[in-house]
């Protein structure tokens, strides 16, 4: 019967394909959301795209994968994982990937999404696995370099006139070596130099500005994972620690629940969000315990006491990882940080409960400026947090959450519910209530603020598939900030809505259109600096439509138009638009591919800015902030020189029509254009 069902299902799913340089469309949209929320142009965390790349080379065995491995895929909701595991438990191994369609709550759309990354291959025996771990993995060497062609003010300033200039060349250089055997063993070393940073000079005597090394082993008897060197820690729902990439607001059910193993290897070029030391997770089928410790020097703004130069403190931590000028170098690694923490967890088929703790110790005291919005900010030399997290599945409902407390006894709680309410309909609720004085570091919770503090809110989302090929998604989020924030001189409220309709009738056509509206409160504008005005409502509305059409096996066309309306603090309305066209080409039976984009944009100011994910060289993500008036184009080529060697090259140029310069400060370019080139070589042996 199952065989017949599988044959029947063959009609429903086409053969999937995954290009080496492209993330799945949903992942692209999630990353766009992450960047939009952080207002950060560069996504320093490459681990997600590296992970997907490794999975495309060594797919997950769906017959042996446990909950942790499926979580790490970041494409399946907790309910889908639960039902997949239950199905396997009741009916045994899958005999074909097409059989996945018979798993409750696993729709064709999701199966198509995950199919490049899963397989049914048989499991190796333990001895073979151990032997193969050491010998049968892949060695990967990656070399990447890039620069902006037009020299900015920072490079052209005469060093004898001003000390405020870039000390190094405009080239960015990143090198990584990694050995990996599936997800069981990996080790590697990375080094990185950002544009403007010097290399092998007296200012940078160690050569590159940043080095990172890691060794990570999984499944060594009772040791589930062992991390040596650089690693990241993800606890609970992100209230006390979350260093990996985490998605932000979206109607996708995956967005709000944080799902990840506690320890993961650090393999990005970002310089801040990781631990350096030792971590270990031990456990059996039901119990699990993790301990980790770290010692490293981190960047911070150092402040000397004007009365006594021996007395110093830091006013904030620096997260840019840039050390291009003397002043940036002065902040490099000035703060000694010792951190440790752990987790004890119990899991069974239906649920999980865990106790987590985290502690930071610094050499220099953290003292922030005495302004009202900083009244409850993190200060001092230590920070401790502990929390309890849980998830529980009852029928078609999945409950999850975390409640945390920090050393000033402030409490934060987040709780969510995912429900599959009908065939093809899912709902999702998420409540958070985080005290104004709750303190944490390197956290990432599903909330409006970028860090979990001073916020209460309720998020609800709906996803329905009313007919084949159609999907409707919507979410609403109501939130309030009881205490002052930067540029908000009072307690404030806000709301956000999204409505999205998706049409994907076949493998060759994908259309979506979304409307998003948000209202937040901010300070009004006044010429009188003493006058305190009531808060102004800042409204932002965006309508986006995207069409992707696969014309042939080698040609895909994609186009997006996005319109934005917003009002600023002086209550005038601004508009902006973006229009781009992509051509993605992959030669049939030839080792070459390319993609080209032409993008037109016009916004009245930075307030009406837009974001658009760009195809880049493998592992690198680029989501530039787009504002002003102009046109941008790029082309991106990759060529498989041999089975082991692949090369990428990217050229991008933005021309502004209504301005004579680009950028500001030391990044100011005295032309109306900005040209970038990037090259990458990957050797796999």
């Amino acid at each position, binding site marked *: 019967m199952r065989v017949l069902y599988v044959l029947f299902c063959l009609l429903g799913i086409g053969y999937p394909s995954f290009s080496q340089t492209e993330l799945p469309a949903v992942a692209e949209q999630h990353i766009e959301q992450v960047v939009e929320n952080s207002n950060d142009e560069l996504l320093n965390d490459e681990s997600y795209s590296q992970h997907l790349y490794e999975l495309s080379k060594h797919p997950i065995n769906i017959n042996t994968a446990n909950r942790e491995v499926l979580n790490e895929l970041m494409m399946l909701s907790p309910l889908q994982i639960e039902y997949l595991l239950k199905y396997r438990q009741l009916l045994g191994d899958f005999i074909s990937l097409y059989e996945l369609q018979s798993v409750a709550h696993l729709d064709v759309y999701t199966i198509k999404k995950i199919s490049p990354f899963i397989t049914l291959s048989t499991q190796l025996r333990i001895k073979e696995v151990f032997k193969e771990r050491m010998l049968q993995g892949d060695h990967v060497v990656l070399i990447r370099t890039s620069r902006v062609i037009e020299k900015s003010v920072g490079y052209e300033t005469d060093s004898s006139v001003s000390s405020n200039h870039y000390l190094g060349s405009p080239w960015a250089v990143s090198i990584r070596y990694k050995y990996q055997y599936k997800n069981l063993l990996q080790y590697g070393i990375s080094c990185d130099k950002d544009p403007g940073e010097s290399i092998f000079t007296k200012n940078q005597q160690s050569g590159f500005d940043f080095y990172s090394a890691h060794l990570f082993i999984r499944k060594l008897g009772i040791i589930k994972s062992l991390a040596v060197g650089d690693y990241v820690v993800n606890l609970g729902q992100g209230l006390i620690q979350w260093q990996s990439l985490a998605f932000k607001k979206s109607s996708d059910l995956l967005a709000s629940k944080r799902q990840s193993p506690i320890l993961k290897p650090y393999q990005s070029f970002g310089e801040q969000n990781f631990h350096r030391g030792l971590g270990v997770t031990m456990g059996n089928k039901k119990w699990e315990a993790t301990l980790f410790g770290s010692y490293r020097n981190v960047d911070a703004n150092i402040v000397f006491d004007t009365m006594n130069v021996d007395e110093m403190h830091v006013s904030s931590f620096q997260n840019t990882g840039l050390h291009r000028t003397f002043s940036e170098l002065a902040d490099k690694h000035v703060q000694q940080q010792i951190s440790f923490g752990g987790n004890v967890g119990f899991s069974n088929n239906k649920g999980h409960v865990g106790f987590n703790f985290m502690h930071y110790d610094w050499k220099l005291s953290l003292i922030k400026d005495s302004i009202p919005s900083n009244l409850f900010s993190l200060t001092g030399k230590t920070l401790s947090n502990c929390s309890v997290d849980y998830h529980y599945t009852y029928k078609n409902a999945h409950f999850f959450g975390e409640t945390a407390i920090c050393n000033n006894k402030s409490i934060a709680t987040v709780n969510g519910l995912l*429900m599959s309410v009908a065939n093809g309909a899912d*709902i999702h*609720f998420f409540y958070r209530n985080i005290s104004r004085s709750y303190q944490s570091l390197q956290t990432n919770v599903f909330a409006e603020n970028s860090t979990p503090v001073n916020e209460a809110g309720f998020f609800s989302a709906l996803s*329905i598939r*009313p007919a084949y090929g159609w999907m409707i998604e919507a979410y609403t989020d*109501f939130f309030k900030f009881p205490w002052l924030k930067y540029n908000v001189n009072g307690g404030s*409220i806000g709301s956000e*809505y999204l409505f999205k309709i998706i049409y994907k009738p076949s493998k060759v056509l994908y259309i979506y259109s979304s409307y998003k509206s948000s209202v937040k409160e901010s300070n009004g504008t006044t010429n009188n600096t003493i006058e305190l005005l009531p808060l102004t409502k800042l409204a932002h509305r965006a309508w986006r439509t995207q069409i992707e059409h696969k014309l042939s096996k080698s040609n895909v066309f994609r186009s997006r138009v996005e319109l934005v309306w917003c009002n600023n603090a002086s209550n005038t309305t601004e508009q902006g638009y973006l229009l781009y066209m992509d051509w993605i080409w992959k030669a049939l039976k030839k080792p070459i591919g390319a993609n080209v984009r032409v993008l037109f944009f016009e916004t009245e100011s930075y307030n009406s800015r837009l974001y658009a994910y760009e195809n880049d060289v493998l592992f690198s993500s680029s989501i530039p902030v787009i504002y002003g008036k102009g046109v941008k184009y790029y082309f991106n080529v990759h060529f498989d020189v041999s089975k082991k060697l692949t090369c990428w090259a990217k050229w991008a140029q933005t021309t502004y029509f209504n301005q004579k310069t680009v950028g500001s400060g030391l990044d100011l370019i005295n032309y109306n254009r900005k040209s970038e080139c990037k090259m990458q070589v990957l050797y796999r042996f």
Partner: protein
Amino acid sequence: MKYSIAILLPIFFVSISMAQFNSLAIPSPSISLGAYSQNQSDGYSFINNQAALTSIQCFGMAVCQEKMFNLSEINKVDAIVAIPTSLGNLGCSIGRKGFEGFSETNIGLAYARKLSSAISIGTQFNYYSFKIPSYFHSTTMNVEIGTMIHFSSKLTAGIHLYNPIKILVSSNEVRKLPYRYKFGVGYDVSNDFFISTEIVKQEDQAIDLIGGMQYQFDKRFFFKLGFMVENSSLFSSLGVLYKSIRVDALLRYHPHLGYSPGLLLSTHFKRT
């Protein structure tokens, strides 16, 4: 205390009900959410759109009390009766809000019938009384008209006009019942799950959007949740059905004014 609340009442009404004398006229979305559902419509649905009365199969009655913003001085009590007849369905509503220092009272009589299997219409005549002892007392009447189209067994849309002929409560322009136009759409995703959205335009106010969902997660348990965009408020209810008696615990939340708890008791009598 009561007098100070009486002074503050107009402010509340401006923010919530958006005019001075119309707070009773606006149905609580948490109790009338099912108007555009073909599976989950109930006796209270006709408060939202009178054409929803046509989905009533048996005699039903309900009473609801809401303590708005947790202030007993603005308690709101409503009661309805829905009666199916061979000539069309009838409905009656009675409501009162306030305390001895200020009160609004409303009596409404509704009638609805099907024009075809796909189209229903309904209307309601209302009588209002507004009273502030020793200061102001006024009565007036107005009309509501609603229509619904069932595009399929799952999709229903409708239009509702409240007070289309502008009626003043007194000669003072401020004391008026505003007009309100509403377009609503409901989609029965399954027999147990329903979503609905309404676009509302009320006199002197920005266009509002109301969205909500209703889920019967067990034969005896119901859950509703929704939002109103313009004032960023949320509403929800949790219902329990025992034989023919249903009890719903209601909760509304406004970010500035706080919580409004309520209780709904309803019953229906099946035809023998």
